[in-house]
């Protein structure tokens, strides 16, 4: 893909210039090396650094790193919330991999949810971003309108709405009955269709990646398209040879973010299944299972182990994404 871009805008043949270095830099460095006392300017900069970094560092230590370390510790304990945790080594992890079918079931359900909903969501987000980028009037209104589901899609209210819409007497079945369909199921209570309703809900929250794509589309230099047009490239060719390669960093960014979000999806499954992951574990998201173990069955040590495993899983997938990104993500540097 990047080669196509190069055909439109050939690289310069001039030899690269050496990096600019102000005269006397080496002498100044040598002089400061021997200095023991820091200048008042340095002290001010250090103070400013502490002031500006302090709140974030405090928040990170107290709200992220602290609980994370706590969870890692608890994952090696038996902790039922009521009594003090007792150290049990790696028993939770052994149990997870050797005698917990629901762990694997939740992995499969979450995996399907991620693999199906994230690409669909990105596809729709990109398509709509391109549509809005055609100079449509009232762009800001459309942008706000499409972004709205991203804000409310993960809420309890939308979960309840979804349950109502896809229920036996819900709006979807009312429409289908009016069209002559019979023997319709309750989509959220049928194990064959319940996950699909959650996938639709996630796809519906395409607004956030769409906004990012829209911004990315507007950053692609127009002269690329003009050159391609002069060279006789049609719209399709321009899309695959210019738009898509230039957007790959943002596609990659959205892919990472939405994958992580999808792995952490909880509220819709909890609301739609009534907190059970049913019917027949068909909506047993990993996070929901973690919640059930922790707060319904009081196995907080095991739930922590599940949390640590999820962190490792997301970390591994993200690392793999980064590893493979060099083969398909084009950076203009």
């Amino acid at each position, binding site marked *: 893909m990047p080669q196509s871009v190069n055909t439109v805008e050939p690289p310069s043949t001039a030899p690269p210039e050496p990096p600019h270095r102000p005269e006397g830099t080496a002498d100044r460095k040598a002089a400061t090396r021997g200095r023991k006392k820091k200048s008042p300017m340095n002290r001010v900069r250090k103070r400013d650094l502490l002031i500006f970094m302090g709140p974030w560092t405090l928040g990170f230590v107290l*709200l*992220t790193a602290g*609980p*994370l370390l*706590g*969870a890692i510790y*608890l994952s090696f304990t*038996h*902790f*039922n*919330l*009521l*009594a*003090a*945790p007792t150290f049990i080594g790696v028993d939770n992890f052994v*149990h997870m991999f050797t005698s917990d*079918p629901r762990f694997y079931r939740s992995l499969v359900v979450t995996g399907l949810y991620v693999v199906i909903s994230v690409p669909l969501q990105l596809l729709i987000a990109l398509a709509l971003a391109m549509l809005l980028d*055609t*100079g449509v009037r009232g762009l800001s209104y459309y942008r706000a309108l499409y972004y709205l589901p991203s804000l409310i899609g993960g809420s309890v209210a939308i979960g309840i709405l979804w349950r109502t819409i896809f*229920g*036996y007497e819900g709006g979807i079945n009312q429409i289908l009955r009016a069209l002559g369909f019979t023997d319709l*199921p*309750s989509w*959220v*209570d*049928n*194990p064959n269709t319940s996950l699909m309703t959650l996938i639709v809900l996630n796809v519906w929250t395409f607004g956030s990646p769409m906004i990012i794509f829209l911004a990315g589309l*507007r*950053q*692609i*230099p*127009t002269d690329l*398209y003009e050159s391609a*047009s002069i060279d006789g490239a049609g719209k399709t060719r321009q899309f695959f040879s210019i738009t898509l390669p*230039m957007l790959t960093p*943002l596609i*990659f*960014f959205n892919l*990472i*973010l939405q994958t992580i979000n999808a792995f952490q999806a909880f509220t819709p499954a909890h609301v739609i*299944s*009534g*907190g*059970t992951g*049913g*019917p*027949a*574990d*068909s909506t047993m998201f990993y996070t929901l299972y973690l919640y059930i173990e922790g*707060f*319904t*069955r*009081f196995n*907080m040590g*095991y739930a*922590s182990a599940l*949390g640590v495993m999820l962190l490792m899983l997301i970390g591994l997938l*993200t690392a793999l994404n980064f590893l493979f990104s060099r083969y398909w993500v084009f*950076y203009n*540097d």
Partner: protein
Amino acid sequence: MHSSKRTRPLTRRPLSRRNFLALSSATVGAGAFAVACGGNGGGAVGDGEIAGNVRFAWWGNAHRQELYAPFAQGFEDVEPDVSIQLEPAEYSPYLDRISVQAGGRNLPDTFWIPANQATSFADADVLLDLNELPDDIINFNEMPSDLVSSWEINGRQVAPVYTQYSPAVQIDRTAFEEAGITDLPDDESWSWEDFWDLAQEYSDATEEGNWGISSMGAFYQHAHLWIRQQGGEIFGGGGNLVLDPDILAGWFAMWQSAIDRGAVMPPQVSGSETQWTQTGHRTGLYLVQLNQYLDNVSFSSDHDLDLFKYPEDSDSTDDYQFHYHIRMCVARSADNPEAAAAFLNYFLNDESAAEMVGLATGFPVNPSVIERIEQDADEAEQRMLDMQARVDEQPMRDRPEPPPAGAGWQQLIENANDNIFNGGQDIDDAVAAGIQDLEQQLERG
């Protein structure tokens, strides 16, 4: 080719790899998860003064919350130095909340606790033994002493019973009459076969979309009663799991057979919405916990909802009936334990409860309160009282409470039901998997 807006990009600087990595790391880092843990707390009995703030938590729907809020706050008239802080919730989030609060050593001072959870909390020593209090704070004098001592857990009075109730069968007489069915069986002698025949008759007599009863195999208290009819039990006296898989499989097989013959609203139609308030106008029968009967009557105010005793087969045990309990307790961490306990005593003994909350959560254990309720009972309350009286005439063998971590037996019933009727799993396999899961839970504690 492109709009003129393209000539005015927000910025012309393409995203560099370094910037991208920085942006990604920051965003990914912010998405890390957190699990909180609590420290140790606890307290001892205070200075004997009944004063201060008391946090009170209980569960129930909006109607129950409306009933209990003024009753709880009425304690402030009895003890003007006490201030009551209310913390109500629906049942499911309530359990989540108190478990988290227990972990954070931030339990409400006085709270309701389902009987199934009481042993777990008692075992963790987060509940105050009321026997440690001065004698005049909690008054059990109106209750039979053997009953009071039977409430003890591990020899400590940590969660006395506040209300109790039994299961029964609810029949929508109006719906049956509208369906042309007026000859109902005698509930002193009816069998399960009669029950299913009646459900079948209702399904057949009503138009499409109506069934005799909704799919209630997941209702664990009714499953428990049926298991006891077969001579089985969930837990033994020592807290060991004694559930016979064949008996439990029999419960689900009975529902499967009823679904197959068309007597039961299929789970594919009802989904998880099987409460009377969700299916009541499409079904005629319902297995009811008596503490929920008044809510159902309120929901179907234009229908005549009658109560029948449980069907029995000829080989059913005669002492299968039981009382299910809602218990009440004081947290060991309560800031004002005497005030919290006095508040609990108010719930147990104050006769104003008869008028203010009545039978909203079942039958108060205090006979004086029950007598007051009987004096002014309306038709629905009288039906409840009569049914409970008939149940109480029957012998009742012990019903051991689940051991710590044993409350999962409810999920065993619910999950097995879900896997069988929604997931298509074989009954024996679902039951065996459920029991194995519960055994693991008990083993892990």
